């Protein structure tokens, strides 16, 4: 099974005036279709940087980035948007909806980028909103939606691109715990039901249990203690697709479901 994302010996150094800030110092990580990986770690440890590089919106200083088998680490600014469009959906802490567009139009913008327009786009946007439980909110503006509803519109928008990979930075940080759980359940379903590779950066202890795998980043490196061990415990084995079960067995602590 080809990993959805594979990074090798990844480094990123920001130039901060004369000084240089090493944000990532050699990270190896694979994320497979159907799994939900959480990135945790202290503030400033490099989580967002790693997510940005995996999302092809930031180029690494060195190392390899493979998205769906394609090496993107050395791609130019011109080629990267196409990779993002084809393979990656983003969900943000601040939702990043377009405030002047309705919920439906927000979704249609993604469809437009994918070349779906007109009545077909409107129909598809309706479907996607219905899938995240917002069937009646097509014409609502973001300002009229609650935080959880906004994040669900954002998820519908990400799904409109039909990405193999969904990346989220603190998607629940702006939500109350109940709403946060609803959103996380959706993200988990994306991985488990639809076979997406989902990577979530979070500080939110309330939602950690949704992880199939938790990666701890410290000082630009993956902390050895985490990674292949712990936190898959809450994921019922039967939710993981059989065809990558072999891989799963390597890191999943065998524990009873729920």
């Amino acid at each position: 099974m080809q990993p959805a994302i594979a990074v090798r010996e990844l480094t990123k150094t920001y130039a901060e005036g004369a000084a240089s800030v090493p944000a990532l110092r050699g990270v190896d990580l694979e994320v497979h279709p159907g799994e939900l990986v959480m990135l945790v770690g202290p503030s400033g440890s490099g989580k967002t940087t790693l997510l940005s590089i995996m999302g092809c919106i930031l180029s690494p200083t060195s190392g390899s980035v493979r998205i769906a088998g394609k090496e993107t680490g050395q791609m130019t600014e011109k080629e990267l948007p196409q990779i993002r469009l084809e393979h990656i959906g983003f969900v943000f802490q601040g939702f990043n909806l377009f405030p002047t567009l309705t919920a439906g139009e927000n979704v249609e913008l993604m469809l437009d980028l994918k070349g779906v327009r007109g009545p077909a786009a409107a129909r598809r946007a309706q479907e996607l909103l219905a899938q995240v439980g917002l069937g009646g909110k097509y014409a609502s503006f973001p300002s009229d939606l609650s935080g959880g509803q906004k994040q669900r519109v954002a998820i519908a928008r990400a799904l409109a691109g039909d990405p193999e990979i969904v990346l989220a930075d603190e998607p629940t940080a702006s939500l109350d715990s109940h709403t946060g759980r609803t959103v996380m359940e959706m993200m988990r379903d994306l991985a488990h039901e639809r076979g997406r590779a989902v990577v979530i950066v979070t500080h939110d202890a309330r939602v950690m249990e949704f992880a199939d795998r938790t990666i701890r980043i410290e000082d630009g490196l993956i902390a050895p203690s985490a990674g292949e061990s712990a936190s898959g415990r809450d994921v019922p084995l039967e939710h993981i697709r059989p065809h990558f079960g072999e891989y799963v067995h390597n890191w999943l602590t065998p524990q009873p479901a729920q």
Partner: protein
Amino acid sequence: MPPLARRNLFHDKIRLTVTLTGIVFAVVLIVVELGLFVGFTVTTSSLVDHSGADLWVTSKHVPYVELGVPFSERKLYQVRAVPGVADAQKLIVRWTDWKRPDGRQESVQIVGINPDDPMPMPWNLVAGSVADLKKPDAVIMDEVYKEKLGVKELGELFEIRGKRARIVGFTRGIRSFTTSPYVFATFKRAQEYASINDDQTVFILVKVAPGADLKQVQANIADSVKDVEVFTSSEFSRMTQFYWMFTTGAGVAVLLAAVLGLVVGFVVVAQTIYATTMDHLKEFGTLKAMGAPNRYVYKVILTQAAISAVLGYALGMVVSAFVVHASQKGGAAILLPWQMAIGMFFLTLLMCTGAALVSISKVTRLDPAMVFKG
């Protein structure tokens, strides 16, 4: 494409108002200055352009119509004898002094014509007729200059260089570019008003026979009549325009003001369009993160600029139309020919999209990390 550009533009009504005000301001400023330039230019040569003549015969070294030098009117018969000349007439254009009833002197330009000629001068009469010039001491002037010359109504008597002058008609819209209005009289009377010898003229206007070659007739006259120069009307018109607009610098000042309008307008428009882009910077970042190529984002920004341009242009033209209309009653006509109106549209579009380009560089170098900030 969902209507992102339009929505972003109309979302913030105050900003939209500021943007449109800036564009309207720029459009009106440029239209007024350019319109003044065109108005001035047309005014300087209006006498030449309305003469109906094909050729102008002048003394040597006459740079423009106001500076004709008298020469013997016997040359008229020589000119008439040149092959290809259908008709030739004398014309006087000459500075002289007008005395107002309150005793103040005003400088005027006396224009002496033969009222029996088919020459279309003076034109655009709103009171009296050209034939009335044949009455004793008769003069015709433009209504715009009534106040300047102390004129109230037809029939009033004045003095030009100590000789009687009676108003028998008014024209409309015959402006002089200089501060001296044109005053029309018969050729004979104009000689007296302007202190020109009674055997002299200032110009000879030539009508070329149908089918004759203008340039050929021009050369023929120059060959067979001594001590004169011959210009086609369009040559003489352009010489006169060039003198007043560029040699005196009057036109340069107006053009400079138009350029200034363009610069000020551009800065104002660039500033507000830049600010609008900055307001939505995070959205553009999100759009780029979603996989939109730069050109997609540019399209949104340029569409926004183009909509602003169209609205600003339309409003600006409405305001300009009022200004242009109001100017018709004043001393300086602002002209807005259709070519200028169309040109203005593209200039506005260019100004707005150019202004948008300033903010586009900001979007090109978007820090992707910003899309992850809460």
